[in-house]
């Protein structure tokens, strides 16, 4: 290739166009991503995210609890001994988020204890053996009174 041809091929005008294309193409991918997201978007999923579902799950209990103060927490996942269990941590934090400004302590040593169980995991007989009285039972969400705490 002759020097003049090379200059024309990689001349300033070509380099400017290549430069603009380099930035523009990834931007067009953003536009394409919107098309993809819009196609895969299911409006029936609105309001079904994990946080909103937790809010709804705890709504009946919330009305029965004091507005402020501290409550204990009990669950079928052993959160105390397995702090790396991300799902269990998430369930605890979501409980705190739903019940704020009530402070939820990750221990059952409190007069009032909120129980957060997987569906069908709560055994109504078990609390009595551990010194708890069931005050409210919504299936997977329960409110207990710890008889051992005055």
């Amino acid at each position, binding site marked *: 290739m002759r020097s003049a041809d090379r200059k024309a091929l990689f001349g300033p005008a070509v380099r400017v166009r290549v430069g603009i294309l380099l930035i523009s193409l*990834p931007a067009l991918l*953003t536009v394409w991503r919107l098309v993809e997201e*819009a196609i895969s978007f299911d409006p029936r999923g609105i*309001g079904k*995210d994990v*946080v909103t579902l937790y809010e709804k799950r705890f709504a009946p209990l919330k009305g029965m609890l004091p507005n402020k103060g501290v409550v204990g927490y009990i669950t079928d996942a052993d959160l105390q001994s397995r702090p790396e269990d991300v799902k269990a941590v998430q369930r605890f934090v979501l409980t705190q988020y739903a019940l704020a*400004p009530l*402070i939820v*302590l990750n221990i059952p040593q409190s007069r009032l204890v909120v129980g957060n169980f997987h569906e069908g995991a709560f055994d109504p007989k078990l609390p009595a053996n551990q010194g708890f009285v069931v005050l409210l039972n919504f299936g997977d969400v329960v409110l207990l009174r710890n008889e051992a705490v005055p």
Partner: protein
Amino acid sequence: MNPLVFPSLLIPVAIGSVFVSLWLPWRKPLSSALLFRTSLGTGFGFGISSCLFVLGLVGWGPSRGGFILAEITLLVVLMAALVCSLRRRSARIPPEPRPGSGKATTLQRMLRLLFYLTLASAGGIFLLVSLQNPHGGWDAWSIWNLRARFIYRGGDQWREAFSPLLSRSHPDYPLLLPAAVARGWSYIGQETVLIPAMLSLGFALATVGIMVSSLFVLRTRTQGYLAGLVLLSTPFFLRVAAYQLADVPLGFFILTTIVMLCLYDRRPEGPPGPLLLAGMAAGFAAWTKNEGLLFIASYLGARGTLTLLERGRKPVLKPMLFFALGLLPMAILIVYHKTRLAPSGGFLFLEGFRSAPARLRELSAYPQILKAFAEKMLTFGEWRVNPLPVLALYLACLGIEMDRRDRRPMAVSILALGLMVAGYFFVYLLSPYDRQWYLTNSLNRLFLQLWPSLIFLFFLTARPIEQAVIAAGQGRLGS
């Protein structure tokens, strides 16, 4: 939807925009100046009203009416001050002559069109992700919005938000976002997911706006659009914004600090407004996330190093004085928060400090962190096409051409961002958390905090297309 949602957000934006206008000279074209001020004003406004909200809580407790009145009074006072200051300014500073700043060329029009198309697409993605995650991502509901709930729902007991019993949610974390969200809810008298979502959108738009409009002012319009396109082409930026995380606001304040320093260095003999705003932005960065404190330390370290290298050839006292003046109110508020409202964080810090020597001796940690840094640096944006080789190729095509006056702020900024990365390294080294888990879950967000500033500095360095065309002796490309 509560009809007060938009006024509740527009008032801080107006306060911020008028406030920054008091400290910046008006330059033509006015459209760029307005975009610049509104973008700056969005971040500054949310920052100022979050501070006012916390001060109001500390001083008088929660009072919806009192708070609205205080904000409106502030807005009126600021507007009156702006009118007076505009009358006093006898002559406007003329616009800086820039190549290609005349009538828009076809190329500029096409880039503008692509920019707005990409911006609209990014807005669409934000909306879809927000609809699927109305409460935001994990950190949003477990830290920022949770604290906002405690403050808003707590009423007179709002200090419970900082109870050491809530250590899992880090009560010592800075308050800009929780206070801004709680302020919005107090304002409209109702808790809605719209407020944190709109705040997050506001910060994302302001980041794009400040980047684009500052390059309009400091370089050329195409340079601004191209920088905006690179940021909008970062999927992780859009996702983190929709997840209502604090990294986008922090990135906004870091970028704003750097932009203000560049503006000041263009006219060091001019009024010190940009320095004051740079100090405030740095303060707001620390009011947003603890990494903001690292940014301030990095900036001061970088500035100090450069001063030593210059051996007193440049004035130091005036820039540092005005930067410190801007920073001071935020510094006082941050110290109050850390020592009075949430002192428990200090114990955790001391605990980490005690175990530091042992962690520093952990030799296996160094390659582990370096490897994660090298990997995440290339992938943090969740791109389909990695922009780093693309930007390198762009630079090879267009070349480098810097304004002489930008060299100093550029050197300070690059050094400061480098010190921040070094700081992140030591945070991972000394952290009590499981290191691999911590690296996996946070490093990409740390890089995202610096990304807008890096894009800005890149396009401040790259030769503008208009100049490349002129250098080629072809006049306007595509005109």
